[in-house]
């Protein structure tokens, strides 16, 4: 638009110059090849696909597109292997079927889960729940014995302090022969 108006302005200035200099009417419109004067209106021929190439000025999208490129890269770096693995497991291995426990058979602790990944985790990563149960019971047993012994010790201590006939609570007192009774021996001191 600016270029067009500039061309028109230049054309008007040239026409005014030519009219001013020559003073005669001339045919407008320029045909034929040949050197042109500057400021003339020329029909411009551009390639038919997009027209004239323009330098479009806009804000940079380099940082945004770099961010999205890196995001896609790092997400797909582990996302695609995980997706492939999950598809393989769900399509080719599949889930377990529910069945009655056969006679005389004790299932392993991972055989109580359906999905193959859960079974794998229960088998190789986690502890069996029976082990957890037994650990809790062992801890409870230890603490129960400790608390029982502590109560007995407190009771024994109380009784020995009270009755004084046990091995505890013996305090060294000074010998009675060392006591000097001369202060109290005569009544008029």
């Amino acid at each position, binding site marked *: 638009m600016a270029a067009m108006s500039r061309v028109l302005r230049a054309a008007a200035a040239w026409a005014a110059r030519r009219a001013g200099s020559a003073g005669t009417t001339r045919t407008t419109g320029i045909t034929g090849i040949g050197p042109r004067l500057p400021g003339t209106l020329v029909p411009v021929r551009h390639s038919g696909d997009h027209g004239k190439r323009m330098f479009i000025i806009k804000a940079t999208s380099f940082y945004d597109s770099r961010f999205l490129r890196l995001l896609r890269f790092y997400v797909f770096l582990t996302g695609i292997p995980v997706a492939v693995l999950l598809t393989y497991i769900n*399509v*080719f*291995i*599949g*889930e*377990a*079927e*529910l*069945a*009655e*426990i056969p006679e005389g058979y004790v*299932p392993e602790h991972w*055989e*109580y*889960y*359906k999905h193959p990944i859960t*079974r794998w985790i229960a088998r190789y990563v986690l502890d069996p729940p029976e082990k957890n*149960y037994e650990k*809790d*019971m062992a801890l*409870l*047993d230890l*603490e*129960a014995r400790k608390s*029982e012994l502590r109560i007995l010790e407190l009771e024994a201590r109380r009784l020995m302090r009270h009755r004084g006939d046990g091995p505890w609570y013996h305090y060294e007192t000074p010998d009675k022969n060392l006591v000097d009774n001369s202060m109290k021996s005569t009544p008029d001191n």
Partner: protein
Amino acid sequence: MPEDHDLKAYKVPPTRTPVAERTTSVPNPVDFFQTAFNYVFDAPVTFVRELIERLQNKNNFYYYHQKFRRVPDLSECLEGDYLCYYEAEAQWRRDRMVDQEIVEIVRERMAACKQREGPNQFQNCAKEMELLAQVTKAYQDRYGDLGYHGNARTCLMKQKHRMMEERKAAQEKQE
């Protein structure tokens, strides 16, 4: 994947729509939609499913429902026997989960009956309604107001109070 509805559990009574006689020569548009649905959705999905099932038929491994042995209850434990307390507590929690699932199943049956019967639900679902009322009352009596920190001991105390109330009510009725 969530479980599919077990269609064999809720016995739907046979439909009683009467056989309609054709009075027009215009073909039924529902047939067209049905075949379209069949070709667009049903056939590809069934094909893929059968393909996957064929692939998965080779390795068959099973999973079971765990059966727990019954251990002595909290009322049969000696005082100070913390191991017995622990096992009784674990058993009580499992029993409470089982009871919750039972209530859930009875509720689902009631909802299925309501959905099935529609406007005649109040007449035809009387059995399910009564069963639901009984089951929820029993659950409320046993596990009702124990709260978040309810355990086997508080439940036993609640049972003790219930029995005391019953005994007092029986004595008052005698007099």
